[in-house]
C-alpha cells in the first residue's frame, strides 16, 4: 500500500514536469498572457488594466484598482468567505461548550 502511494507521488511529479515543458519561458514578455490582443483579437485583461487603471480610477497601484474596482465582485465574495469562516469558528467552538454546561 505504501509503495503504491510513493509510486503515485512520483508519477504525479513526472506528469507535472512533462506538462511544465510546454509552459512559456520565465519572464517572457511575449507570452500569450502578456500580449495586448488575444488570439481572436479581443483586448487582454491585464494589458488593459496597465494602460487604463490610472485614467479610470486615478490610482497608481494597479493591483488595488483591479482588486476593488474592476473585480470588486470577486473581492466581495472573498470577504463573505472569510466572514463565514469567522462565524463557523464561533459556532463550532461554542456549541460544544453550551452542551457541556447543560449536562453539568
Amino acid at each position, binding site marked *: 500500500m505504501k509503495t503504491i502511494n510513493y509510486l503515485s507521488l512520483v508519477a504525479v511529479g513526472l506528469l507535472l514536469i512533462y506538462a511544465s515543458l510546454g509552459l512559456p519561458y520565465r519572464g517572457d*514578455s511575449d507570452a500569450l498572457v502578456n500580449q495586448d490582443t488575444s488570439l481572436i483579437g479581443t483586448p487582454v485583461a491585464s494589458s488593459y488594466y496597465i494602460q487604463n487603471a490610472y485614467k479610470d480610477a486615478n490610482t497608481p497601484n494597479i493591483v488595488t484598482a483591479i482588486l476593488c474596482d474592476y473585480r470588486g465582485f470577486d473581492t466581495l465574495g472573498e470577504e463573505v468567505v472569510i466572514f463565514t469562516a469567522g462565524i463557523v469558528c464561533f459556532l463550532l467552538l461554542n456549541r460544544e461548550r453550551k452542551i457541556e454546561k447543560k449536562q453539568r
Partner: protein
Amino acid sequence: MLDFIAGHYDYWFIILLLIIGLYGMIMKKNLVKKLIGMTIFQASIILFYISGAIKADATVPILTDSISNADTANYINPLPHALMLTAIVVGVATVGVAFAILIQLYNRYKTLNEQELIERMK
C-alpha cells in the same frame, strides 16, 4: 538547452514543493500534519501564479511618471497578484476553520491519529 533550463527551472522547484505538500496530505497519519501539507500545497500554487506574472526587465505594477505605461512590457502582469491576494486570505480562513474542527475532534475522541479516529468513530 541551457536556455531552456534557465527558463523552466522555477516551475520544477514549484512542482517539488507541490509534491512535498501532497506527500504530507497522503502519507502522514496525524491530521495536523495533513493540514500543514495542505498549506504547503497552497503556497506552491500561489508561487506558480506569481512566477507566471514575471516579465523580464519590467517593474512592479505601481505606475510612476518616469516609466511609460503605453508599452505593457514595462510593468509586470498585475492580474495574478490581485487573484493571489484573495487566495492567501482565504487560505488563512480555511486554516482557521480546519483548526476549529480539529479541536472539536480532539475534544470528543481524544486523538488526532487518522486510524485511531476511524476505530473510535465506529
